[in-house]
């Protein structure tokens, strides 16, 4: 009878709210405020049996589930067992401490974006896009770039004040650097969808390193990567300027681009102008 009572200390009525109206701490919700309920599934490389079930419970406990219920155990072979576990976790979520990439730019309509580009650059904003490495998933980058667009919004090609060069799939990093220089790109947009063995991370860091090497600091084009499995908070770690994740719309990207490109310099830090050497 106690779990919900203790829980309402945490999230119930009363406690202060964050400025945005959210509760400062929350717990997962099964059917009662604060019950902390979570569902888990995983495979352990152990033969099915009590011992494996105990191991599953131990793992769940290590994950913070004090009283795990191992509700399903199925032998996948004589060496692996699949588990479903339910139970309450003791962790609370500290909502105030949540790191989110808040939208740091105003959302503009295509018209506003075009006006802002004219205003700040006095020329077209040049965007070079590609799927790099061996990745051939172009639907995501096409969703952002092609006129057709995504989720009802037109892609960047539709913007009169943007010049879009879409290099397509499986572009090598050297080719991308080269094209960015040739086109005097303001921004390079890269898509990475395959994430097995962290392919997206490796490819992105390779790409950003190549751009850092090829362009003097402050002169390289804006580096933007996107794909469904990126952590939007990882831009610094990956050496890029911005990451866009699952469900990004073209309008967001366009708005970001004017904001960031215009913000960077009014003189124009385009890719060639001051290019040095490259490989």
């Amino acid at each position: 009878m106690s779990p919900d009572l203790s829980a309402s200390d945490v999230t119930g009525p009363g406690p202060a709210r964050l400025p945005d109206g959210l509760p400062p701490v929350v717990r997962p919700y099964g059917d009662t405020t604060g019950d902390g309920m979570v569902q888990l599934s995983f495979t352990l490389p152990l033969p099915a049996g009590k011992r494996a079930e105990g191991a599953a419970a131990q793992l769940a406990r290590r994950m913070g589930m004090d009283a795990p219920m191992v509700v399903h155990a199925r032998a996948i072979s004589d060496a692996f067992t699949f588990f479903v576990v339910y139970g309450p976790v003791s962790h609370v979520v500290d909502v105030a401490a949540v790191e989110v990439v808040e939208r740091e730019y105003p959302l503009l309509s295509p018209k506003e974006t075009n006006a802002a580009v004219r205003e700040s650059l006095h020329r077209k904003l040049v965007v070079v896009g590609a799927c790099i490495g061996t990745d051939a998933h172009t639907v995501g980058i096409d969703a952002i770039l092609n006129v057709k667009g995504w989720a009802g919004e037109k892609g960047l090609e539709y913007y009169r004040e943007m010049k879009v060069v879409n290099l397509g799939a499986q572009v090598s990093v050297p080719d991308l650097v080269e094209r960015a220089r040739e086109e005097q790109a303001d921004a390079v947009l890269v898509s990475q969808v395959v994430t097995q063995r962290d392919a997206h991370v490796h490819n992105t860091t390779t790409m950003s390193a190549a751009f850092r090497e090829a362009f003097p600091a402050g002169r390289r084009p804006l580096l933007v990567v996107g794909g469904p499995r990126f952590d939007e908070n990882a831009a610094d770690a990956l050496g890029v300027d911005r990451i866009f994740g699952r469900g990004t719309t073209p309008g967001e990207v366009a708005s970001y681009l004017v904001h960031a490109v215009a913000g960077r310099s009014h003189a124009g830090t385009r890719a060639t102008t001051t290019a040095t050497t490259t490989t």
Partner: protein
Amino acid sequence: MTRRRPRLHLDPEQVTRARTLADAASGPVVDLARTRTTVSVERAVLRAAGLAGADAEGIPWVNHLVDAVRRQVGLEQGIAVPVWDALARAEAPDLTVLAQKAAVDAVGFTLPTGGAREHALVGARAAAAAGVAGIDQARAEREDLVARIGDPPQRPWIYLIVATGDIYEDIPQAQAAARAGADVIAVIRSTGQSLLDYVPEGATREGFAGTYATAETFRLMRAALDEVSHEVGRYVRLTNYASGLCMPEIATLAGLRRLDMMLNDSMYGILFRDINPVRTFVDQRFSRQVHARAGIIINTGEDNYLTTADAVDAAHTVTVSQLLNETFAHEAGLPDHLLGLGHAFEIDPEVPESFRLELAHALLARTLFPDAPLKWMPPTRHMTGDVFRGYLLDGFFNLVGSLTDQDILLVGMMTEAVVTPWLSDRDLALQNVRYVQRAAGNLAEDFVPAPDGLIATRAQHVLGEAVDLLQSIVDSEGGLLTAIEHGTFGGMKRPADGGRGLDGVVVRGEHYVNPVSEILEGVLV
């Protein structure tokens, strides 16, 4: 609702025979019920008359009053005469005070005759009429709301269970469910409530695996659903359970509080709660009369058999129970369109052709009861902790619902074998139903069971077994009561003189009067 062309041919003679046998089996039980009353029936009369509230311990005043009357003068004449006689004698200004005094034995009850009796009856009948008027008003309100807000656009209606134990958690969950597509919300009751010989009071927050059904939880939830009905543009129905020892009172409260459906099976309490068979049949007849008046759709509980018996072997017991529920319901005045006969998708998924067998059983029910709003219930017994598999089974269950024109679809939960539904389980389950209903669309038009194929053969076979079982019930010495005693349904053996609540049954005396029943049975209007 318009029925599609029948997809199953049943021998009309056998159908007639099945119904005749069901009538024959129920007859003696109805006679038993007509000649008895129970403490709960009498308490229901008081509730209809407006007596509410409870003492500090939570024991309702209706219980105190009925117990006191029984102690002093017995219930053979019913509660009405002694109570309204006491009021007439100004033992107390109103029912509540009377009950309070009765609780401490500070009132003397009598069984007047002649003028005094007539006088008491006038008071009782007026009070009962006011109560029934309250039920009538709730019904009119429902009809009005449905007319204004509208019914769900699709069949089957989507029926969802809420069961937190705390009415204040239930409400937002029910509202979220309605917004997400539920057409009917059932608030499950706390374990153990059905064995309480009183109805708890107030906005309870401490149920186990369900929330206590009280006049106040009914009111709160109905109000919450009215609010959301306007918002979603469909009248969202509310369901609870008229079962257990207080079935007549719960039915009465449901009528007054505008509940829209009630679980109300003719044998569930006997089999699954070990409630005395006679008590159950008496209580049930009264409660069904109330439901009929209130325009409440009853939901029967044939699904339950399949949780203890095998769904293939015992398929015909479902049919027999449906036929019995039908005849009992008709006798109590319920028309076909209020008969939410139940059946369930409970065949072991390991059985070859299980999906087709489910289709056969579901079509059989559909064909036998063309005008009843059938309630199609999801897999429970063969659900496991493998929630992924469970989600899939529920999808196939939903598909049977669409292919066989079911009317009410109790939404299955992937966590059936794990926990009472979480908020997210319900949301996922609704997504499942919506996908299946939308994707299958009018697929029923392409579903044409081969005339001598497995589906047709199986349905005919089950009907045959049902007729045989009914025949053996009618033929056996003690009829239905003996059949129940012998474990015919769900394998549970329940003797007529066993189980809980038998001491609450009273054989009606010659002068028995029930002013509520008089109205419900049309003796008075």
